[in-house]
């Protein structure tokens, strides 16, 4: 059992936003496969079909995607959250986005009746004009939106950060000032792939975000820097597919880890990773994950 911002996670692995999070059923499946908590697909104020395909491809290193925040709007999604909440006993975190503070609050309140256990503010999607990282690169906007949502809801608020900034710590501090209960790092890294046979950018949106193993070293560094600067917990995400990967993020400073792209092979990645963490803690005679959160900072 792991406690993050007052939520009791069954284990330190969490389903990342936008992965298998479009339906309640898919999220329930992830919990059954071992996820200690789940984050929903990012939900906005209006239905959105997202960018045209190809919207995700596997590269030699990692994946690149530009889904474009497809979602049925909070009005249609509230039932999906209800379905998960009824079926499982792990925290369900609603990922939400909007173009400004008012929209964020509209979505949060719209989902409120389904009692999500926390909100994760997506101010970090790198390929959604006017949303996500467009907002998340500006500390003032991040602080404002965080504070406004924080004031409007009475569950923990997590703020998901983009690595596509000169200094992620500036943005993390803004979230903390705005009252965030935790930050989540990192969203995908701005990237692009071109089809050499034709010259066409492969993604329908032309560019997108890099995820998977390619970005883990970037995530580790972001988490390490945030841990040094912030007082609130950090939830690590980026390229985790084995327990070793997750321990690396935890040692950098993460209190829990989210897993995204790695469900490609099997949802049981959650079970494998959390069992692996447990075995590791046992072997090293640690009482719990707290013993290793951020220990890289002490190893000098």
């Amino acid at each position, binding site marked *: 059992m792991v406690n993050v911002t007052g939520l009791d996670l069954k284990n330190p692995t969490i389903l990342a936003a*936008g*992965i*298998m*999070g*479009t*339906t*309640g*059923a*898919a*999220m*329930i*499946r*992830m919990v059954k496969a071992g996820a200690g908590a789940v984050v929903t*697909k990012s939900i906005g104020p209006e*239905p*959105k*079909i*997202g960018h*045209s*395909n*190809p*919207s*995700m*491809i*596997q*590269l030699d290193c990692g*994946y690149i*995607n530009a*889904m474009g925040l*497809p*979602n*049925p*709007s909070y009005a*249609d*999604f509230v039932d999906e959250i209800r379905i998960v909440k009824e079926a499982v006993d792990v925290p369900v975190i609603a990922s939400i986005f909007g173009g400004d503070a008012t929209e964020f609050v509209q979505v949060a309140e719209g989902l409120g009746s389904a009692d999500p256990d926390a909100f994760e503010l997506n101010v970090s999607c790198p390929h959604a004009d006017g949303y996500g990282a467009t907002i998340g690169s500006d500390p003032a906007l991040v602080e404002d939106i965080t504070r406004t949502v924080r004031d409007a809801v009475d569950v923990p608020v997590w703020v998901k950060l983009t690595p596509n900034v000169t200094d992620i710590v500036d943005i993390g501090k803004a979230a903390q000032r705005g009252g965030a209960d935790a930050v989540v790092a990192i969203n995908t890294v701005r990237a692009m*792939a071109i*089809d050499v*046979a*034709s010259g*066409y950018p*492969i993604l*329908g949106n032309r560019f997108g975000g890099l995820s998977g193993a390619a970005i883990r070293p970037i995530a580790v560094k972001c988490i390490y820097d945030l841990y040094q600067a912030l007082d609130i917990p950090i939830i690590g995400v980026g390229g985790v597919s084995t327990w070793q990967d997750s321990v690396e993020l935890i040692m950098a400073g993460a209190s829990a880890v989210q897993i*995204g*792209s790695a*469900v*490609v*092979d099997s949802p049981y990645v959650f079970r494998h990773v959390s069992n692996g963490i447990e075995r590791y803690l046992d072997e090293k005679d640690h009482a719990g994950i707290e013993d290793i959160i951020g220990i890289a900072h002490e190893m000098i």
Partner: protein
Amino acid sequence: MRPIDTRIIRTIQETPSTRTFFFDVSFDDAQPGQFVMVWARGVDEVPMTLSYINAITVQKVGDCTSHIVALSEGDSLGIRGPLGNGFTMPEKDERILFVAGGVGSAPLAPLADRATSIGASVVSVLGARNSDELIFEERFSQAGEVYVTTDDGSSGRCGFVTDQLLDMDVAMFDHIYVCGPEIMMYKVFENLRDKQVHGRAEFSLHRYFKCGIGVCGACCMDPTGLRVCKDGPVFNGLQLESSEFGKYKRSACGQKISI
């Protein structure tokens, strides 16, 4: 994987709205029922079953398929695949029933070829709107007996594949493979379930695919959360019991759409 650049080396107009495109790339490891993501550059990327080891058969229904069916020899497409799980392979001496509706015969035809080559005993029921829209009839004929139904009676029996099934003893088959419009597949499913043989049946499903590789969750089925693109597109009848199958699917934004 990135899309593989694939050149069209031959096309066959199967019906007024459907064409088969043969590629210079052959997906030799592909199992019947597996699909590829077909990228018409600058337009869209859509899932298509492999109707041969090196071909897809495309029915024109919208933007991207209109673009594809207009392509000719020498044109190219970007192809990712083979993806997903195909059909359970039949074995020699097993009795097989194919039930196909329209372009739904595309994933079944390679399996019929396989059945022919191993000498399985095959019966096929092919449904179509009219005789023009019948596809791959010869490939099924090679494999065994074929019953045709058309909506307008222009070929075979006038009616639906389910009418034909009602006249048959479906319990005599070891495997039943089904593909076609969902409403038709669901009728077949109900028919087989009534006779308690849906556990021997496999259905090739269609859902809206975004990633096509099992990450995004766009294609998940209720209430199991099974991914059509990765855990399917072929599912056993038992997996579809009390599911959304035949009732609703999801749009690109995730809203439910009635079947």
